[in-house]
């Protein structure tokens, strides 16, 4: 019912309402009727065939920065595996 994770828009028709997202390598038909103004290459959250939210990259970076800070202050062993 719900892909749950952000997926990338890889096809979009002229109306901007219908297209496809890439879900783990498979192209999945998706409606963008509830999310006007999205473009090719945008990352979105899809529920039951409909995109409902666009991923904000600035906010995503902020969350990662916050996480990095918490990891660095935690005294967990210094090893950078997993850090982007």
């Amino acid at each position, binding site marked *: *019912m*719900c892909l*749950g*994770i*952000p997926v990338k828009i890889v096809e979009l028709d002229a109306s901007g309402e219908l297209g496809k997202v890439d879900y783990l390598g498979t192209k999945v038909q998706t*409606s963008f*009727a*509830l*999310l*006007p103004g999205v473009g090719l290459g945008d990352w979105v*959250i899809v*529920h*039951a*065939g*409909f995109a*409902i*939210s666009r*991923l*904000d*990259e600035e*906010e*995503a970076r*902020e*969350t*990662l920065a*916050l*996480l*990095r800070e*918490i*990891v660095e*202050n*935690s*005294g*967990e062993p210094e*090893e950078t*595996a*997993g*850090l*982007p």
Partner: protein
Amino acid sequence: MDLLTDKKSTFALLRKIEALARGVPSPVRVMEVCGTHTMTVHRHGLKSLLREAGIEMISGPGCPVCITPNAFHEAAIELVTGREGLILATFGDMTRVPTRRGALRTAIPAPGSSVRIVYSPEEPLALAARESGREVVFFGAGFETTIPSIALMARKARRTGLRNFAVLSALWTIPPPLRAILESGEIRLSGFLYPGHVTAVIGLAPYAFIAREFGFPGAVAGFEPADVLLGIISVLEQIRSGRPAVANTYGRVVRPEGNPAARAVMDEILDPDDSRWRGLGLIPRSGLRLKRDYADYDAVRKYGLDLAVGAEDLPGCRCGEVLRGMSEPTNCRLFGRACTPDSPRGPCMVSFEGACFVLFKYRDVAHG
């Protein structure tokens, strides 16, 4: 995005939670309202790790298949077995919910009728356009994540003059049951984790009463392990500071105002309705139904269905208590014995977001 899932951040966040939890009155009991959060909590072994850190996680009512009363399922069975030439389209897990009349999946349809599993509300509408000689009823259950798309389909059917399409709608809105849970005072809770994707649609304002009227903390959280833990940290910080709020720790997906286009479609097509939830009973304005203009597309009105009868659960099932956070699935005597995902006795074992299913599936997940 590895930091959202890797063990290093999980443990760093857990340490922080442990430290914060020491400074607040225990026990700290956080309800994860959404079934997808329940999945994250169990799949990654966070339930026991959090318990060690001083946080008890309680599952809430956030699984649409689970909270839909059996009256809806029995009405769907009635439709497909009692009417000829009718296609009953629904999401796969809806066909497996057991009722006193069996499950949709095993119902024997009337001549020319059938049950069809769909993945998107667009499919039944396309089906109705193709199969003009048959009635198509979309049995759709969902929260605010799915509701706008169902509303959109009703509007499209009406605009295109499609007469053989109707919706048996089991549409539920998340904030009212949270009020019901807080007002009942049945369980002691310290904070809510609000569902990320529902909030991506409705925005933060619908939860404002929880902080304002009840002085109760809450945070919107995403669905990766680190997201859930960041949400819990926010709840703990609110408890510590004595400043309850509606925090948003999932800013990459959730805008404070939600999704205006989706909200507009809901407002245009649907009206709030007093609705009955499994386990929680009748909750004022907790559901949505099609407006009067759409009566021809509302299966309840179109076929004169009665959703007030036959709402009993199978004997022994405690799904209703589980949905209120009153009982753990393991307190149910049927759990893992008479009730398993292969032969469920209640919807909480059917849905992949159901607390019983999640616990059964991940019961062996060890942490570490």
